[in-house]
């Protein structure tokens, strides 16, 4: 690297010397007192971990009995490519799998669809049919590891396929552990891989949850995610509010379908991002955990403490990582990992430093995994339960974040709930406005991003390490395998299972999961199953508001 000095990129001289003393306000806009003293703290006793309202964590022994799961999100190219990366990560001490799927699979298009061809295997692995999933888990015992799938619009199909692989591996369904994200509401708002309109999508989610509670009782059939709305621009307070509001919408749907809250609430899980304001992030987790337990208890009368436990995974990184001076991202992820641990996360995914501009290389993926191993095994922060509990500032900020989140949830209630707010595009517009605010604050230098708006240098292009390239033959291989499967399978059986699926979809209240599992066993493709349901339900029409 050259010796060139950092130089200011704007007229603002501060950009060279540094930003000075930060304004005492959190990114959610909470004014931070100079000193928090005992008399300012409402919750003077945060209670005991493992007990309602779980401010200090859901387990009495914190991480002493068991560490969080090290779960690195990974997937690209064909199932063979990804299987190789999984075996590498497992050999390096990763303790759970997390499958990244490509956009065609997520949006319900087969790899030969004209909508799909440019994107096969790009941001995740292409999994169009059972043969691909068999390859993905080749040599990996599904009874011995938990697997998480970031899949939403086509979650029911991928879950059905996972069950079919387990059936073929001879793993009993009640041994299966893992998670499907299966949270469609935030897809309409932030992540964009919706397929069907809101209401039939809610039905399909209820189908998966009710089926999973029965057939795969150790599996999480939904992971209600604030992560994506957060990365899309909203604040930590709004991340809590939107996530819990969506959570309540799922609870209502499940109750309507005859589910018992005491039962299904035990298998609801959650998913957040961790960004950089350390204490706000720690308190976000504490506040969300407490508020969820209270909501279930107060609104639904849930008594079983197991059903009140707010279990969540986190991603450290996301849009808090930037392309300039990318090695700095390793430090960011380290700080964020500590916040996740002190907030009591059940699983952690640490982003690789190069994720702001490419799929991680094997080397950068390894550093990301090592980051959480260092926090787990060297830092000592998991030795005692909730070491920050009782800190005046932490308890004060936890109270404040909970109160602010309740206000935002009330605004959503005033609008008529999350479903109308999404169907009208109201929530989407709110988030877009927030994103513009955040971008403007970064541009003006009010929000400091080291290496981007301060301490920037323009002489380091290309110094970021290895370049990741997907095997250019991967798409071709995926398409060839896809065509081979369609030639090989019993097409009569495929048609029969799809016709049964369609007939079941036409009947309200019929659980579609058994039909999807049958179709997967017959090697029906994701695109075929989705097209079958689109004939009954149509597609979501995005409300475009600016």
């Amino acid at each position, binding site marked *: 690297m050259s010796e060139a000095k950092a130089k200011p990129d704007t007229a603002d001289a501060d950009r060279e010397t540094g930003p000075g003393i930060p304004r005492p306000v959190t990114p959610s806009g909470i004014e931070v007192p100079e000193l928090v003293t005992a008399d300012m703290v409402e919750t003077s006793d945060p209670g005991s971990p493992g007990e309602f309202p779980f401010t200090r964590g859901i387990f009495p022994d914190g991480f002493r009995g068991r560490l969080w799961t090290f779960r690195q999100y990974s997937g690209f190219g064909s199932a063979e490519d990804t299987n190789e990366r999984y075996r590498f990560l497992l050999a390096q001490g990763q303790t759970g799998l997390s499958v990244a799927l490509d956009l065609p699979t*997520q*949006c319900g298009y087969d790899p030969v669809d004209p909508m799909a061809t440019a994107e096969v295997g790009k941001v995740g692995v292409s999994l169009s049919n059972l043969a691909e999933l068999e390859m993905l888990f080749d040599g990996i015992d599904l009874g011995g590891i938990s697997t998480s799938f970031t899949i939403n619009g086509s979650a029911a199909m991928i879950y059905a396929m996972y069950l079919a692989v387990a059936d073929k591996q001879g793993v009993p369904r009640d041994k299966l552990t893992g998670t499907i994200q299966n949270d469609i509401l935030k897809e309409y708002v932030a992540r964009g891989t919706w397929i069907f309109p809101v209401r039939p999508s809610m039905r399909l989610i209820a189908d998966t949850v009710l089926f999973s509670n029965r057939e795969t009782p150790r599996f999480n059939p939904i992971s209600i995610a604030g992560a994506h709305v957060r990365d899309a621009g909203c604040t930590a307070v709004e991340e809590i509010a939107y996530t819990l509001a969506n959570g309540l919408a799922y609870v209502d749907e499940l109750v309507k379908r005859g589910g018992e809250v005491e039962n299904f609430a035990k298998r609801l899980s959650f998913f957040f991002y961790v960004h950089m304001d350390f204490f706000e992030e720690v308190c976000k987790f504490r506040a969300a955990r407490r508020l969820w337990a209270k909501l279930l208890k107060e609104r639904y009368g849930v008594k079983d403490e197991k059903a009140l436990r707010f279990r969540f995974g986190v991603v450290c990184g996301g849009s808090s990582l930037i392309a*300039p001076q990318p090695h700095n991202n390793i430090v960011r992820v380290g700080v964020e990992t500590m916040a996740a641990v002190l907030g009591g996360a059940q699983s952690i995914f640490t982003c690789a430093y190069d994720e702001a*501009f*490419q799929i991680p290389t094997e080397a950068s993926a390894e550093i990301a995994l090592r980051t959480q191993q260092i926090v787990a095994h060297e830092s000592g922060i998991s030795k005692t339960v909730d070491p920050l509990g009782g800190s005046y500032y932490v308890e004060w900020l936890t109270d404040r974040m909970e109160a602010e989140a309740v206000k935002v949830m009330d605004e959503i209630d005033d609008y008529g709930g999350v479903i109308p707010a999404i169907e009208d595009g109201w929530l989407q517009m709110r988030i877009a406005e927030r994103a513009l605010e955040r971008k403007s604050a970064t541009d003006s230098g009010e929000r400091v991003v080291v290496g981007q708006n301060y301490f920037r240098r323009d002489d380091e292009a*290309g110094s970021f390490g290895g370049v990741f390239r997907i095997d250019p033959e991967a798409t071709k291989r995926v398409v060839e395998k896809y065509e081979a499967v369609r030639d090989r399978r019993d097409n009569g059986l495929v048609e029969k299972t799809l016709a049964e699926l369609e007939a079941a979809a036409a009947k309200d209240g019929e659980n579609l999961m058994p039909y999807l599992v049958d179709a997967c066993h017959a090697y029906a493709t994701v695109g075929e199953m989705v097209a079958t349901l689109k004939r009954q339900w149509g597609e979501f029409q*995005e409300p475009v508001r600016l």
Partner: protein
Amino acid sequence: MSLKGKRILIAKPGLDGHDVGAKVIALALRDAGADVIYTGLRKSPEHIARVAVDEDVDAVGLSILSGSHKELVSEIVARLDDLDAGDIKVFVGGTIPPADHEDLKGSGAAGVFTAEMTIDEVLAEMDRELAP
């Protein structure tokens, strides 16, 4: 700024659902006085080119975070040419590795924007390109 009164189509080609950048730029262009149309998600290159022509826009801004920028930019430039609309400028923003910027310009992109640029920098470059 000559962006005032310019007609600009902001489009999301392909299946990528990350629309923060698209919406932020759309809002900023509107604040700068441009007449902005936003397509919404998941539009095909044919659709984007047709809307650009039907709406008689001066420029198309593509937002792509899926890694498919090379294929999609070439495709949309070609579809615009098919419709004799090669004079419509094409800009692209998103998760685009530095190594690909020159390739995209070679394929007909008038500007390539990434997240670390300020809104002012993006608008200034569009303004320069669209100046009469």
